[in-house]
């Protein structure tokens, strides 16, 4: 490979930093979404996916498109929040919730659960199923929020490809499900429609963790595989907001490989068991 080839085949990284800054500035000022505290390597990868799909020769070409076309911004939001999720993802975590957390929830007259960054809702229905089997669903209100309205619409409909049900069913059993997973949906052509009994007490709402305030008094908050997209500053901000949204001794459930050890609020929580990724809010130590 000649030296000239090398120059043309790799992007000018310094220029790209400037281009991404321009793009994020355009998005923030036009649409009010602040992506400046997003993990840069993930952001860049996703912006490049859009660049490639849209056949653009540079990232900055995306700026006028996003400024003038709200649909292009929606396209950006979808790309930023596309994620791998499934029902009972990491079934061991759901099993732990079922065995250790749900028995404690029986003592509360009402239960509030928040799925922050619920994406297409698979885990919201997973949790609703566990609550139903523990006879807790009736007194529970579930808030399922995301900043991506397209994902939220899928979550609210509760319709998933039928072909995924085998995998979901396997996870359901691994999570300690007591019935048959097929009891919770009905098949319609190529789709599985989740039972309406599960969604009766779920509120689906638009919420942007990068900007919006807390919901109060939650027993459990799920925030799974969301913090990995944030830099340290935004992680601390969001975790503080979550802590303040939990009741005394409420629980925070993180992703399978997420930890609060390196964050500013690690002292406010205790992990219920090492590597469980389930954190219990500790009483505040008041000074004199």
């Amino acid at each position, binding site marked *: 490979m000649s030296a000239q080839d*090398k120059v043309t085949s790799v992007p000018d990284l310094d220029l790209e930093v400037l281009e991404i800054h321009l793009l994020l500035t355009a998005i923030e000022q036009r649409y009010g979404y602040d992506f400046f505290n997003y993990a840069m*390597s993930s952001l860049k*990868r996703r912006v490049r996916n859009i660049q490639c799909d849209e056949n653009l020769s540079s990232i900055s070409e995306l700026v006028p498109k996003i400024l003038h076309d709200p649909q292009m911004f929606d396209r950006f939001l979808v790309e930023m929040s*596309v994620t791998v999720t499934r029902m009972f993802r*990491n079934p*061991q975590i759901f099993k732990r919730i079922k065995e250790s957390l749900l028995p404690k929830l029986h003592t509360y007259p009402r239960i509030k659960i928040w799925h922050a960054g619920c994406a297409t809702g698979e885990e919201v229905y997973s949790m609703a199923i566990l609550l139903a089997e523990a006879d807790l669903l009736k007194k529970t209100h579930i808030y399922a929020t995301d900043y991506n309205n397209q994902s939220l619409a899928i979550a609210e409909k509760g319709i998933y490809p039928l072909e995924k049900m085998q995998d979901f069913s396997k996870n359901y059993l691994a999570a300690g499900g007591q019935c048959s997973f097929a009891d919770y949906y009905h098949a319609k052509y190529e789709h599985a429609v989740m039972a309406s009994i599960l969604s009766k007490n779920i509120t689906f709402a638009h919420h942007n963790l990068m900007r919006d305030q807390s919901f109060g008094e939650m027993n459990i908050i799920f925030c799974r595989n969301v913090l990995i997209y944030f830099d340290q500053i935004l992680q601390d901000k969001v975790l503080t907001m979550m802590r303040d949204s939990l009741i005394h001794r409420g629980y925070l459930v993180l992703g399978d490989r997420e*930890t609060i050890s*390196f964050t500013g609020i690690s002292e406010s929580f205790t992990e219920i068991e090492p590597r469980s990724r389930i954190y219990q809010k500790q009483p505040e130590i008041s000074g004199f």
Partner: protein
Amino acid sequence: MYAAQNSYSAIAIGVSAGGFEALAQLLPAFPKDFDLPIFITQHQLMDADRNGFIAKYYSQRCNLPVHEAYHGTQIKAGHIYHSVSGYHLQIESNGSLTLSVAPPLNHAIPSIDILFESAVEYYQSGLVGVVLTGQNTDGAVGISTIKAYGGLTIVQDPDGAEARSMPDAAIAATQIDAILPLDEIGPFLAKLSNRESP
């Protein structure tokens, strides 16, 4: 030998089928005072190794500490970071590790291409990319990118590999600097030494 003329900033290794044994043979070759960070993306099944056995296993057999890659970890020279099941491993622009649950690439999460492409943006020509045994083509695009940035590219000789399609794909993708049998890769890498990170 390339190693005699240059110095490098980091090593990124991609491995799939047959990887556990290959790494168990390769990693002990690094001496205690080895001064580059080493990143490994190894294909794993979903929910595999939740107790962190792999990192402990390698740690006991290596002169260097081996860690599971956690989000936000600051990269240290002479440490080995191993990918975890269900997450892509990326190198962040501030010299830390980032995880992602973006869709699989080449049917793989973690994907070797994603590690290589993020690492080379940070280390540029200082990156050494290594593709080992595997039944896939993951890593081929990434190792071409490492080559394009002027980094050093090494591939396990497909003839001796447990699964040859990943080394074959890497060799077909770009002009590889060194194609070596597994038992020579460790000693080769162990001779590389540090230069300033960008």
